[in-house]
């Protein structure tokens, strides 16, 4: 066993020994990936995983370093970029990825990507 593998085993026993918790957060992440375009919130996610929302929030943050909401936003913005690259309009993209307000979508997009959705589309447009 290499030094790296030895260290990984230690890390595994310290950080990843609770399989139940890991299954909960992995399941939550998969659910978000499959339903990012829906109206998701912590109440719904915790209900699906049969856990309290505070517990889910704590676990998700523990294992992924971000809240479910932050992960959902990242996922939506990632999908938004794909749609914009393929030629979807800004409005179509906004609603297709689960945002409900084009103006707040544009503001959020620009704050994260450094470009407005329109500017991003112009600089990245590829024909599919």
């Amino acid at each position, binding site marked *: 066993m*290499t030094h790296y*593998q030895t260290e990984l085993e230690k890390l595994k026993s310290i*950080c*990843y020994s609770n399989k139940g918790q890991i299954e909960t957060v*992995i399941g939550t992440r998969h659910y978000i990936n499959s339903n990012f375009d829906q109206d998701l919130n912590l109440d719904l996610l915790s209900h699906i995983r049969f856990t309290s929302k505070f517990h889910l929030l704590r676990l998700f943050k523990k*294992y*992924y370093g971000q809240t479910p909401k932050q992960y959902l936003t990242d996922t939506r913005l990632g999908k938004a970029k794909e749609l914009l690259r393929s030629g979807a309009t800004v409005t179509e993209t906004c609603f297709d990825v689960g945002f409900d307000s084009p103006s707040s979508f544009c503001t959020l997009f620009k704050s994260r990507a450094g470009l407005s959705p329109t500017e991003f589309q112009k600089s990245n447009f590829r024909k599919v």
Partner: protein
Amino acid sequence: MKVKVISIPVQDQEKALRFYTEKLGFVKKIDVPLDENNRWLTVVSKEDQDGPEILLEPSPKHFEPAKTYQKALFDAGIPYTQFNADNVQQEYERITSLGVEFSMKPTEMGTVKIAVFNDTCGNNIQIVEML
């Protein structure tokens, strides 16, 4: 400031280019001669050709501390860097069939699955899949 280039130290740029393109599936992006033996040589992911570039940097050949550091990491089994894969098991099977050697087979580590292989240019490289 933006992150556009990351560097991987390699002992032989031509060998590294062949490995990273023919075995791993990256695509050559920039190849500019600098002097008779060295190039500014980068590759990118085939799926993200406008994304981050990997600079295949011959630092171990020219700078002793880089050679020492690379060897120390390699001997300890520590990956120099990692790449994301949609399915580590599939990538492991694909790359193994091309003759690449793994020091760590696909292993679950909490919320990820990882594997570590030898890039034949002085580095261990890790591939990781989000579970």
